[in-house]
């Protein structure tokens, strides 16, 4: 199993470096070969697109083109990267003339995107390509005492039409299925497919905090010991901003939040000290101890 | 007690256009509607609105097409007004912001439609009604016009022979109160739910037509009901004539474009009554497919379908599991429009002072025995405007009369009656279904005296059962069971007038086709049927047709 790897922007390497470290480490452990696209730019994450759609599309076309050169599918480790790149990919398929225009800029840099790259989040690489059965067989620390609340991240879910949900309906429960395969119990709560508020956290802190508080408290109410998310931006909010959200709400929250790769890493026997838990805001000590 | 200069009942296109005109005239106008205005069935009109905008077109040609389309039963003074004023009204709609599809030169594009001698149907992809309805609503927001939304009109208030407003029920609270007005404009649309199936929405129960009928206003030409040639088999949902306007074919089971037999010149774009009859004949004679004919759009190509006919593609995918890009679509004639209605003059005035009517619920008559596609949206705008203007003028001159609070008593008593009867096992939905099927079978595309008499008898029976109907839910908030029961009463009265008028007319003209009287008989029947409500059923009289420019000719397409 071999993939072109888009690690994302500064976020997984600087803001949430535990993600990069745990994801790369996990893939190594599982025998998933990664060819990192060193020069792939930020996807724009919707921010660039709020000013200049074409610039964002150009960046993503270059990433897709670089992946295309490797002749491997492109793996992402961030819901937002997955979503934004998929949206661009869909746009290019729908409007080949537009892609032609974008390619003119790419050609100046010696690249051309022909439209063939498949983009897959690590979550789907695990549940579809690697396979849940195989993963199950590699579990050495079953997560049997943990009740885990899955938080998908908007960009991994919507618009469903361009994220392959029709062709792969199992994606709708991929996180829960994965949790189950690792021996854990998935907690069902309404917020699991809603928004964490990251895109507005610096512009409307009040609303973002309200969303964080709502989802973490609901998960706790439904019995969750820990939350897991495949998106570092969600993580930054749900974990990093959790104290501020708790403050605003006027109550304690204290729900640890794991990255997808950390959760899987723990279950398949990776050394906890190599998974970057010390970087978290909300302490994960208890959770890690229980595993 | 609320009081206004002008009360418009019904907030679809005709109603809102009337209200807008009244607002511009500076009078105190209010709209009343049992649904939020954008839920009105005008939104379901798809294909387009007619106007002689082109340099090579003329309002006279449009008017002739309309008169011929009406099988010469249309009043030609009204038709002239419709067609002459159309261009200005369309331009006005565009200036209000309607997103009409355009030609290369940026001018409003027009497509061919049935029975038209020239492509004069302006359109917004295939959501024309929705687009125009929303634009007129936007204008009313800008003009800050008062509206009683989700209020149900129970009866019209008549004092000393003059209409003084309506008694209405606030659907949110159950309160019944009089809403006084110096003039009332009835614009409650069609009555499709008298039939099953129908292209019409569930709200099209003919309320206003029945309300006017019950206070002695005559209903004209009730026997003339349009069956739209292309409605979906199961749901009855409309598939626009615009599909044929873009070039779609109608095929029978042998793959033939059978319309060339029935309308050698216009083929699929013959007048709707001609096409529906042809389809029914093909089906009856064994050349149908599952009781339908086929609408074939494949040769139009994916790009054109996606641009010009996106909504009907969605509808066919959702409701008929058919992608019209890949396969032909099963369609059949479905009850669609009422040519007849509340008799009005060319200003929208009825025989009762203070009461006006416009739109599908009215009969001026512009459509006569059969309506051309694209003329109904046009009628709502032209005559909605005229009725609004005339009603405003009347209101300015009318004196203030206060009606007593007790006007609500009869409606309150009726509601009590519905609640307090003993339960004799009657069910409104079942009665409505039987009514609909009787109308389809016996007052359908092809009629015989025997069938029509049978329909009259059945309707009589259904009315007796209706008189035993009990409404079980007695809550005050949003009591849909009560309102459905009242609507059923409206529908039964109208069905009675329709069947009786049809039985009496012993000829075939336009959409009224008698197997036992298959020819058009101008000598005896070039006249409008006028039905008056009596406790013993409709009393029929006749009124002359205004023939001005075009003498009736043999009608072929």
């Amino acid at each position, binding site marked *: 199993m071999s993939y072109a790897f888009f690690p994302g922007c500064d976020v997984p390497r600087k803001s949430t470096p535990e993600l990069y470290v745990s994801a790369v480490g996990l893939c190594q452990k599982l025998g998933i070969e990664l060819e990192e696209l060193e020069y792939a730019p930020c996807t724009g994450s919707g921010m660039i697109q*709020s000013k200049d*759609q074409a610039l964002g599309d150009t960046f993503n076309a270059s990433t897709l083109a670089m992946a295309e050169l490797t002749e491997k599918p492109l793996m992402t480790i961030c819901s937002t990267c997955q979503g934004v790149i998929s949206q661009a990919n869909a746009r290019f398929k729908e409007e080949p003339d537009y892609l032609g225009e974008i390619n003119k*800029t790419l050609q100046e840099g010696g690249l051309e995107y022909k439209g063939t790259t498949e983009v897959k989040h690590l979550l789907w690489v695990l549940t579809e390509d690697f396979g849940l059965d195989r993963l199950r067989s590699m579990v050495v620390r079953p997560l049997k005492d943990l009740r885990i609340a899955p938080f998908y991240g908007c960009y991994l879910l919507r618009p469903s039409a361009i994220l392959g949900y029709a062709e792969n309906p199992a994606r709708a429960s991929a996180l829960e299925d994965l949790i189950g395969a690792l021996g854990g119990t998935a907690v069902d709560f309404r917020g699991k497919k809603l928004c964490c508020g990251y895109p507005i956290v610096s*512009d*409307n802190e009040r609303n973002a905090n309200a969303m964080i508080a709502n989802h973490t408290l609901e998960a706790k109410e439904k019995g969750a010991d820990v939350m897991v998310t495949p998106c570092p931006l969600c993580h930054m909010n749900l974990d990093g901003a959790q104290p501020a959200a708790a403050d605003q709400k006027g109550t304690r929250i204290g729900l640890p939040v794991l990255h997808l790769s950390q959760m899987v890493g723990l279950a398949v026997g990776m050394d906890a000290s190599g998974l970057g838990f010390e970087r978290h805001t909300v302490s994960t000590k208890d959770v890690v101890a229980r595993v | 007690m609320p009081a206004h200069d002008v009360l418009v009942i019904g907030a679809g296109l005709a109603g809102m256009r009337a209200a807008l005109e009244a607002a511009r005239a500076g009078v105190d106008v209010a709209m009343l509607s049992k649904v939020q205005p954008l839920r009105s069935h005008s939104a379901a009109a798809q294909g387009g609105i007619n106007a002689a905008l082109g340099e090579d077109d003329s309002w006279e040609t449009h008017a002739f097409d309309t008169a011929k389309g009406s099988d010469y039963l249309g009043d030609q003074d009204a038709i002239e007004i419709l067609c002459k004023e159309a261009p200005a009204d369309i331009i006005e709609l565009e200036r209000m912001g309607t997103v009409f599809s*355009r030609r290369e030169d940026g001018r409003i594009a027009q497509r061919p439609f049935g029975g038209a001698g020239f492509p004069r149907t302006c359109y917004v992809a295939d959501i024309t009604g929705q687009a125009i309805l929303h634009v007129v609503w936007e204008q009313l927001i800008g003009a800050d016009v008062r509206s009683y939304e989700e209020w149900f009109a129970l009866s019209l208030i008549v004092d000393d022979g003059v209409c003084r407003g309506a008694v209405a029920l606030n659907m949110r609270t159950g309160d019944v109160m009089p809403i006084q007005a110096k003039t009332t404009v009835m614009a409650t649309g069609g009555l499709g739910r008298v039939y099953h199936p129908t292209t019409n929405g569930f709200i099209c129960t003919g309320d206003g037509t029945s309300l006017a009928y019950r206070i002695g206003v005559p209903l004209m030409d009730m026997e003339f009901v349009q069956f739209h040639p292309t409605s979906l088999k199961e749901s009855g949902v409309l598939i626009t004539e615009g599909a044929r306007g873009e070039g779609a074919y109608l095929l029978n089971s042998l793959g033939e474009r059978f319309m060339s037999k029935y309308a050698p010149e216009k083929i699929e774009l013959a007048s709707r009554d001609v096409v529906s009859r042809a389809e029914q004949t093909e089906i009856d004679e064994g050349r149908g497919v599952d009781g339908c004919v086929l609408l074939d759009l494949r040769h139009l190509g994916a790009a054109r379908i996606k641009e010009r006919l996106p909504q009907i593609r969605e509808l066919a995918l959702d409701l008929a599991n058919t992608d019209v890009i890949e396969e032909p679509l099963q369609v059949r004639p479905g009850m669609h429009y009422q040519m007849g209605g509340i008799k009005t003059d060319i200003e929208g005035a009825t025989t009762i002072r203070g009461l006006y009517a416009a739109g599908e619920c009215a009969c001026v008559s512009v459509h006569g025995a059969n309506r051309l596609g694209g003329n109904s949206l046009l009628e709502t705008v032209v005559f909605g405007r005229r009725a609004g203007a005339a009603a405003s003028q009347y209101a300015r001159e009318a004196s203030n009369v206060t009606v007593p609070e007790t006007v609500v008593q009869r409606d309150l008593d009726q509601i009590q009656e519905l609640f307090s009867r003993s339960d004799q096992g009657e069910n409104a939905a079942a009665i409505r279904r039987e009514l609909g099927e009787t109308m389809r079978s016996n007052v359908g595309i092809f009629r015989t005296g025997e069938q029509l008499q049978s329909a009259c008898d059945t309707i009589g029976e259904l009315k007796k059962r209706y008189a035993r109907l009990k409404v079980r839910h007695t809550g005050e908030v*949003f009591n849909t069971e009560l309102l459905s029961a009242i609507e059923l009463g409206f529908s039964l009265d109208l069905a009675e007038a329709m069947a009786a008028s049809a039985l009496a007319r012993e000829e075939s003209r336009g959409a009224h086709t008698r197997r036992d009287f298959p020819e058009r008989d101008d000598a005896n029947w070039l006249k409008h049927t006028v039905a008056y409500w009596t406790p013993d059923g409709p009393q029929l009289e006749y009124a002359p047709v205004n023939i001005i420019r075009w003498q009736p000719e043999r009608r072929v397409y």
Partner: protein
Amino acid sequence: MRINLKVSRYDPQSDGDAHYQTYSLDLPHDATVLDALIQAHGYIDGSLALRYSCRSAVCGSCAMRIDGQARLGCKTKVVDLVHQEGQEVLVEPIGNMPTIKDLVADMESFWGKVRQVQPWLHPAGPEPEREYLVPHATMLDLAGAMNCIMCGACVSDCTVLEVDPDFVAPAALAKAYRFVGDPRDQADGDRLRALTEYGGVWDCTRCNMCVEVCQKGVAPMDRILALRRKAIEDGFQDHIAARHVIEFEEQQRKASWMGV
């Protein structure tokens, strides 16, 4: 096919809270959720209150939450929701709004917000002799926004509205786009100024929920982003979010090895 239709009931005249009532129904294969409700209402329980009319997804009456997601009842096939006989289908009124009764939501705040964006054409200058001359492509683009039937599904499930009732919300913003994008409307400046204030385009959290639930292809969030781009282009940058976007875009542009 047999289903159990579990419907949220609420009667303001009773003392109780909302509760669920289940109707067991036998439906034809191609039935929609609206068909099921009409059957329940017509033949089993006349006290059920709901709004419906066209059943062809053009009037917007029948928006409701079906299995937790806002949809049009008439455009949701039961067979797409149900995988075995007797399965439950959950039907509730649309969210982010109070309930009048059962499935009838109080849409006052919805209409209020639509009115707030001044949703009528503000033409400028003298009227042309006939129609305004506008490119067909522009009209097509606006017809896409005009596809909105004001059903309320997007507002029902908007994740920002859930925490902040002052957000103008997707439907009103999509409606505003229809005017900003219309060459015949000259109030762009005023509109964009208003739209970039609190509760406007910059308060959308870009979650795509409105795009997902809209069954008429309006894609409200795409329109919101288009408004953002126009606002920045036209100089309406006096908002912290706009400044962040401008900064970020410049940063990425400079950091890029491509000649962008």
